[in-house]
């Protein structure tokens, strides 16, 4: 290790690592725009300048992102000279930056805004007109560019160069006429465009899907795990005032996804943002409580009644096929396993085939976030076709877990004969001929538990918002049903 002194404090750093990284690792704040720990440093924004003294030479101002640590280096991040240099730099950066924070999606999480607030002058010294450039330049389906807000840090350019290894962006023009653009104005492609909105330190690159949707300070942020594939990327679930999910953003995890996530995962809202079923109906949206087959088809019912009916049904048609959703947490899976054991059957889980989105970066192409966990618990993996075949041969079945019907194939399920007695625990009620009872379950942003990812790493799933009032954790619902089965069974004896 290399020992350096920062603001009088001794710090141990990896040899040759950028000074700014050493500072950040030890909680010493050095502002940055062009520097990003996941990208090649270029040292162009100059906001990270600090004062460094090495040997007998007089102290000098250096860019901390392009200065490797050296043994015995004396660093002062807070010297008057360092502050002054950074303030000067900030003034230049703000010279042409539009004053549209009030309508900027980045406001509240903008590095430029934060640092201008901390260090900047209340009044600008420029009386020149600000640069007029394109305010909304579409860079494809995901990202929109505001050229005026851009501070030309080139993080976005380097993101494609360094991370996806397929360069798509470049700086066009020279000097004060520089702008970011795609090669030959072609729209961006690929599954990682959304990361641009995260790497952009200002509001120049924003998500079309998030544009003007929420002010970021109204978002409650919960660390959780992405459900898109078996990679289990660390994410933050951001919900407006703790109610509606607005964004999934990647969260740094050194072992899994580092700073990134794919667009498929970023926009994989699925049932998370599914609106409730219309008032009084069970079909056509999120199932808030329970539904049973009545005289007029699938009708809303109290959860207690639905569970009673399910218990009766399973007593009349014992040894059902028990199928778990691959979204089931390990905790839910244990509950399903216990429930299956009570009924004397072995559980399986529905496993859709690879979806073709696999790449060499993050996406595994396997749409089952907890395949590893379920497999380790001994659940049999069944492709939808095989599952349907088994269901056709079965007398009764219990399908349990978020999106289980969707993953098994709603169309195929709908064709199952009325003779099959089907109990479903899912987020959405559907008009299936075989369906007898359905009880709502929480989505993955409403439950807490664990998945095991493709590499065997435990992933935390954390409830970011409360499920609808009548929806209870699947573990509780199954335990309730099991209790009924056991007590009724005892009464029958």
């Amino acid at each position, binding site marked *: 290790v290399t020992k350096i002194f920062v603001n009088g404090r001794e710090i141990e750093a990896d040899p040759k690592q950028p000074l700014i990284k050493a500072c950040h690792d030890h909680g010493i704040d050095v502002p940055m725009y062009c520097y990003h720990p996941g990208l090649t440093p270029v*040292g162009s924004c100059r906001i990270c300048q600090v004062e460094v003294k090495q040997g007998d030479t007089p102290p000098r101002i250096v860019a901390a992102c392009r200065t490797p640590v050296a043994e015995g280096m004396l660093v002062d991040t807070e010297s008057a000279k360092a502050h002054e240099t950074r303030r000067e730099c900030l003034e230049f*950066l703000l010279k042409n930056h539009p004053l549209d924070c009030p309508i900027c999606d980045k406001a509240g999480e903008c590095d430029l805004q934060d640092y201008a607030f901390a260090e900047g002058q209340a009044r600008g010294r420029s009386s020149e007109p600000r640069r007029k450039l394109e305010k909304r330049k579409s860079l494809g389906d995901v990202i929109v560019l505001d050229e005026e807000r851009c501070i030309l840090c080139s993080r976005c350019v380097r993101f494609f160069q360094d991370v996806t290894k397929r360069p798509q962006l470049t700086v066009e023009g020279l*000097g004060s006429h520089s702008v970011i653009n795609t090669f030959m104005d072609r729209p961006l492609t690929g599954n990682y465009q959304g990361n641009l909105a995260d790497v952009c330190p200002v509001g120049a690159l924003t998500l079309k899907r998030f544009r003007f949707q929420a002010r970021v300070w109204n978002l409650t942020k919960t660390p959780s795990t992405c459900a898109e594939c078996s990679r289990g990327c660390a994410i933050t679930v951001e919900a407006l005032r703790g109610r509606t999910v607005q964004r999934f953003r990647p969260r740094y995890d050194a072992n899994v996804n580092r700073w990134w996530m794919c667009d498929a995962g970023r926009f994989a809202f699925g049932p998370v943002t599914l609106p409730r079923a219309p008032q009084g109906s069970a079909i056509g949206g999120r199932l808030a409580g329970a539904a049973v087959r009545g005289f007029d088809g699938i009708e809303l019912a109290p959860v207690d009644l639905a569970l009673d009916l399910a218990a009766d049904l399973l007593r009349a048609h014992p040894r059902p096929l028990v199928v778990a959703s691959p979204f089931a947490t390990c905790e839910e899976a244990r509950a399903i396993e216990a429930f299956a054991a009570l009924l004397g059957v072995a559980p399986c889980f529905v496993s859709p085939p690879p979806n073709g989105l696999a790449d060499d970066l993050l996406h595994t192409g396997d749409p089952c976030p907890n395949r590893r966990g379920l497999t380790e618990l001994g659940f049999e993996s069944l492709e939808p076709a095989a599952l349907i075949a088994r269901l056709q041969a079965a007398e009764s079945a219990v399908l349990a877990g978020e999106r289980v019907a969707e993953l098994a194939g709603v169309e195929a399920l709908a064709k199952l004969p009325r003779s099959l007695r089907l109990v479903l625990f899912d987020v959405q009620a559907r008009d299936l001929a075989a369906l007898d009872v359905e009880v709502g379950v929480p989505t993955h942003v409403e439950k807490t538990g664990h998945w095991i990812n493709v590499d065997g790493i435990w992933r935390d799933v954390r409830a970011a918002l409360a499920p609808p009032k009548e929806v209870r954790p699947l573990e509780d619902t199954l335990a309730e049903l099991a209790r009924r089965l056991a007590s009724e069974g005892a009464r029958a004896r």
Partner: protein
Amino acid sequence: VSAHPTYLLDRTRIQGAHTLEVYREHGGYRALEQVLKKPWTPEQVVQAVKDSGLRGRGGAGFPCGMKWSFMPDPKKDPRPRYLAVNADESEPGTCKDRVLMEKDPHGLIEGVLIAAYALRASTAYVYVRGEYRRPYQRVQAAVDEARAANLVGRNVLGTDFSCEIWLHKGAGAYICGEETGLMESLEGKRGHPRPKPPFPAVSGLWRSPTTVNNVETIFNVPFIVERGAEWFRSIGTKASTGNFLCGISGHVARPGVYELPFGVSARAILEEVAGGVWKGRRLKAWYPGGSSSGLLPAAAIDTPMDHDSIKAAGSMFGTGAMIVLDETVSVVEASRVISRFYDHESCGQCSQCREGTQWIDQILHRIENGRGVPEDVDLLESLARGMAPGKTICALADAAAIPTLALVKHFRAELLETIRLGRIPDGCVSLRATRALEETHA
């Protein structure tokens, strides 16, 4: 200026000196033969250049021999090694390398070969400014001739030494004359300067050890080899040895490129060599070495032209390209012309340079057009201080800031007067007005 020994421009006055035949008649490639056949070791050549005290002629004046000695030991570092010759002469006011390339291209090639031998480089690139069509053609023709004569390519003159020389044309960007911008451009990328360290000798072209030298610097090398470091040191001053090419332009009677020893006073150059300020007018201000060197007032005209003296006077020797402004010039307008240049040529990487060059230009433009306020003078100074020195990746920001600081330092009164009047003061002939006048007469 008394009679002084010359060598740099001697051959340029000979008819046909750009051909191999005439070049050889006048002693050409003798230094190369001396190095290769005697033979000298590369270290001996480096030592000779070190002993000569030769300083880079591209603007920074860095000791050439020391720069060469930064190249890593080839025994420990097996990477290929490169020499890049900076012929992207684009500093406003500078046109010295052009003369050498057009009139004496073999002199450059001989220098390149000796330098490559000293640096143990087997590939040399000459990066020629895109607008330099004729110099490019002349150097290319000379390389072809030299290659046919076994002076360039495999086993030069039958020795073990091999060196290829490739020419590369720039596309009109000033920033590609910055050594790391030049390397990026040579690699086929945008000419964005690279942060240093690593220095080119450690990681240059294609991340290999590279030395970048100016044309005139390289041109001096054969003379040092042939006539000795002692002889070279006898010319010029103690710290700035040899002759330099002084391109004097602006309001002088006889503008041109002159060969002069370091240490001659600027007044002697102006009055004796260039025939004094034109039209019998008085001197107002002068740039000692291209537009990036700070403007000096007339009072500083007795300063000797060498690196240290010009530095002591508060400016920079630069490329030795004196630009002379007569008494009718508005220094505000002249500075605005130059600030416009730096705004146009900033590569746009560093915040201070990208925004600062534009800001300075906007302010000067405003002042010139009657919309200045007295606070602008201090603002200019503070902006220039925010840009330099050494606050950015390359020296372009410094090059834009230094003339601005010099303007505020030496001509604050004129700035304030221009602001107060809302126009260029009486006695100054506006460049724009002059041009309009010329157009109506034409």
